[in-house]
């Protein structure tokens, strides 16, 4: 940083020169924040301290705009629900008990801005970062899910960003040996200058292996291990992630704001960590992500005994001439920080040596209540760690329902022209199946390894990714992420609940029992009161919804400033749900089953087309009301699916979401490579394209039909027809041959992206 004097700025100097001008504004701090730092320290901060506070008090690290709202998740989690959580909000990732002594952990994180600047590396390091979060809980990372959102499919910039992002997710995940078991791919004009690259990682561990990010035990050593520290992403978090892309002019020397990932180093780091955990050599651990060492040391100390001393000279650096501020805020990837009992240090270093992972003791735990960092024998940081990590600024941003919201709600799809003739309906089914948001995702998912480690039970094209956790008992987990941002635009409260309902339903449709929620809240600028209103509504909707469903929100991630100029993205609270299968052999794949299987539609269909894919694809329309939310119906449906799966009453199933029943039938027929004869319940257009929630298509073997009906109970169910033949035959419509359907469904992404 150019403002750094050639000689180091020490605490001593800072006390002696209280009036020295400091670039706090360029580092993204507000005047009152800088004043508060001076008040906390009783002097001006050193340059290193200023760097530490500015990165840690950035929006990305401190959640200063969102904190006041996120508290609602905790307030709405009932004690009985909380009990099933072994770790929740505030830890690196949420952890839930999944039975038989196993625990699962999962979390989503965004890497939106870096992926726009350098799609491959941005996406790659997004995978790397979330994997380390899961690893830091003591778990083996076992799978990845990648919810992706881009501008219009045909836009030139999408052709630049999308292939790079997909290659980056695959390039890192594949090399790391993690199966990618699901994801999302959504195109909408609002993401044109601001793609969303969210990555979810799920991990599994024996419950006793749970590790927490705490520095406890005075005299315990702090070990930094993994890659060496370079000038990567310095200012990445504070500058890049806290301002829109055009907002250059931070006055700093131009340093690369994007990091480059090394998945090989991460793979070795993962295996090394797991061996360290198994050997009981780790007393506390934290990954190094945004804000690097500043974050790891202050969070470990703050959550532990409160003090830590660090000798910065011990940190292995890759670049020459790095200043203390740079070392502390470097975002070099593939690093971890552990707290190790002195007696275990030799054993710890030996395991690292086996894996050829560089490891260095850089400090120790103290009870001083201070984080003290020295450099060349002088003190460059001396701060109370809580003020850095946990007591950062809190904003109560103004929020206001935008006046345009009423117009949006009033512009219902009722006046849009609906297809009426059988030929029009048939053509609409085909056109929808070929549209970018509904067509086959194989172009993307074929670039991801889904087989590695041999525990992937459902992946490509499944409602939820299903992974076996225990090869002996066949216990496993299911994961899905969802968000229909158009619904969220129409009503962020209900939209978030619909996202939750859909992810929950996808998990249930795979045969699993949903047990936990995570989220990644992608929004525009928090300085825009309309965006802040959307955010607050979405948080409340999600929290209230999870409370009704009786499953905890175990963690999440907030990404603000997703906008181009002053136009924010559609509010996009991506919701992830984790479910448990006692026996993965009883999962339910997507499809229509075998010829002769009965096809049933579960749930109630209403004339609900506001925010629907049909309105979007055919009319480019967004307005009206989102579908009704009925969480009690979702829960009843999930119970039915779980018991029917357990009793073998279902051969196949597929949940209904974007594109309604028409799209569900198309996908299910293609998945089974089998046709179907279907009679539509009610008016054809609504039956085919409405997007009412709480609905699932199921295929029931003839022998199980009676058992299935007995189980249905209160859940509305209507028989659609039977599976079989080589085409989708919908009563009253010209038939749709499977080959024609597949051609339409398969061709779109290859035609766009090669």
């Amino acid at each position, binding site marked *: 940083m150019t403002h750094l004097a050639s000689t180091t700025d020490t605490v001593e100097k800072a006390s002696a020169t209280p009036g020295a001008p400091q670039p706090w504004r360029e580092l993204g701090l507000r005047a009152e924040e800088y004043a508060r730092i001076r008040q906390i320290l009783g002097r001006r901060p050193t340059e290193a301290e200023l760097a530490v506070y500015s990165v840690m008090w950035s929006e990305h690290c401190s959640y200063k705009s969102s904190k006041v709202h996120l508290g609602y998740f905790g307030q709405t989690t009932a004690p009985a629900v909380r009990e099933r959580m072994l770790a929740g909000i505030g830890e690196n990732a949420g952890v839930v008990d999944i039975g038989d002594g196993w625990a699962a952990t999962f979390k989503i994180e965004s890497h939106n801005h870096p992926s726009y600047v350098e799609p491959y590396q941005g996406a790659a390091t997004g995978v790397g970062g979330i994997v380390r979060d899961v690893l830091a809980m003591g778990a083996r990372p076992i799978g990845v899910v990648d919810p992706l959102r881009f501008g219009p499919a045909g836009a030139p910039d999408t052709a630049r960003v999308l292939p790079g992002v997909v290659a980056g997710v695959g390039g890192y995940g594949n090399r790391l040996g993690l199966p990618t078991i699901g994801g999302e791919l959504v195109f909408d004009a609002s993401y044109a200058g601001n793609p969303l690259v969210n990555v979810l990682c799920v991990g599994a561990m024996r419950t006793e292996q749970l590790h927490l990010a705490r520095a406890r035990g005075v005299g315990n050593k702090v070990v930094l291990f993994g890659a060496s520290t370079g000038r990567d992403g310095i200012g990445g978090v504070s500058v890049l992630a806290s301002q829109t892309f055009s907002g250059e002019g931070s006055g700093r020397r131009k340093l*690369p704001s994007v990091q480059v990932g090394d998945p090989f*180093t991460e793979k070795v780091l993962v295996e090394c960590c797991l061996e360290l955990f198994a050997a009981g050599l780790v007393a506390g651990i934290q990954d190094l992500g945004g804000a690097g060492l500043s974050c790891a040391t202050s969070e470990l100390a703050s959550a532990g005994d409160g003090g830590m001393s660090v000798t910065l000279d011990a940190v292995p650096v890759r670049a020459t001439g790095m200043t203390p501020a740079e070392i502390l805020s470097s975002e070099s990837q593939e690093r971890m920080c552990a707290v190790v009992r002195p007696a275990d240090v030799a054993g710890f270093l030996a395991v690292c040596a086996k894996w050829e992972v560089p490891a260095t003791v850089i400090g120790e735990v103290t009870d001083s209540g201070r984080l003290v960092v020295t450099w060349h024998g002088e003190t460059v940081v001396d701060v109370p760690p809580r003020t850095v990590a946990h007591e950062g600024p809190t904003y109560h941003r103004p929020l206001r329902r935008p006046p345009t919201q009423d117009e949006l709600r009033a512009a219902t799809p009722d006046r849009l022209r609906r297809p009426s003739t059988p030929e029009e309906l048939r053509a609409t089914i085909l056109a929808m199946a070929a549209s970018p948001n509904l067509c086959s995702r194989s172009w993307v998912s074929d670039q991801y390894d889904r087989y590695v480690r041999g525990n992937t039970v459902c992946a490509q094209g499944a409602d939820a990714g299903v992974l076996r956790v225990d090869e002996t008992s066949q216990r496993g987990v299911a994961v899905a992420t969802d968000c229909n941002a158009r619904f969220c635009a129409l009503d962020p409260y209900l939209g978030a609940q619909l996202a939750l309902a859909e992810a929950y339903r996808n998990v249930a449709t795979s045969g699993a029992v949903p047990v936990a929620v995570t989220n990644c809240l992608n929004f525009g600028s928090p300085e825009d009161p309309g965006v802040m209103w959307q955010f607050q509504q979405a948080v409340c909707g999600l929290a209230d919804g999870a409370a009704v469903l009786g499953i905890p929100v175990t963690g999440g991630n907030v990404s603000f400033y997703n906008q181009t100029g002053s136009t924010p993205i559609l509010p996009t609270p991506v919701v992830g749900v984790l479910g448990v299968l006692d026996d993965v052999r009883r999962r339910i794949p997507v499809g229509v089953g075998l010829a002769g299987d009965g096809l049933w539609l579960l749930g109630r269909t209403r004339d609900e087309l506001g925010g629907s894919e049909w309105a979007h694809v055919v009319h480019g329309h967004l307005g009206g009301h989102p579908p009704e939310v009925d969480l009690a119906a979702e829960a009843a449906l999930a119970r039915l699916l779980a018991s029917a799966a357990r009793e073998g009453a279902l051969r196949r199933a597929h949940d209904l979401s974007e594109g309604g029943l028409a799209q569900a039938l198309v996908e299910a027929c293609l998945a089974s490579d089998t046709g179907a004869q279907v009679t539509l319940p009610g008016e054809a257009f609504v039956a085919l394209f409405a997007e009412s929630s709480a609905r699932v298509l199921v295929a029931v073997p003839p022998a199980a039909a009676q058992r299935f009906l007995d189980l249905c109970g209160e859940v509305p169910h209507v028989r659609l027809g039977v599976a079989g033949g080589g085409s989708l035959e919908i009563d009253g419509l010209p038939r749709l041959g499977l080959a024609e359907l597949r051609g339409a469904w398969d061709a779109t992404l290859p035609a766009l992206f090669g």
Partner: protein
Amino acid sequence: MDVMPKPEILDPQGKAVAGAMARLGFTGVHDVRQGKHFELDVEDGLDDETLHRIATMLLANPVIEDWAVRWVGDEPGTDGETPG
């Protein structure tokens, strides 16, 4: 045209090669960085500006990479080459 990772940027490829050299006992090499090499067969009149645009739009991402151009004569690959 050579495209190289910027000096501040991690170069995992170069790192892996350097590690392998050390294991193989090649001691005389201090550091390795790996980048891409493009051989463009261009029209005589092609100007530097066009080349600049090709480089920054297509061949390199200026956020993480530097690039350098070297003109060679008609016979490709004749300059300073040791037999390969």
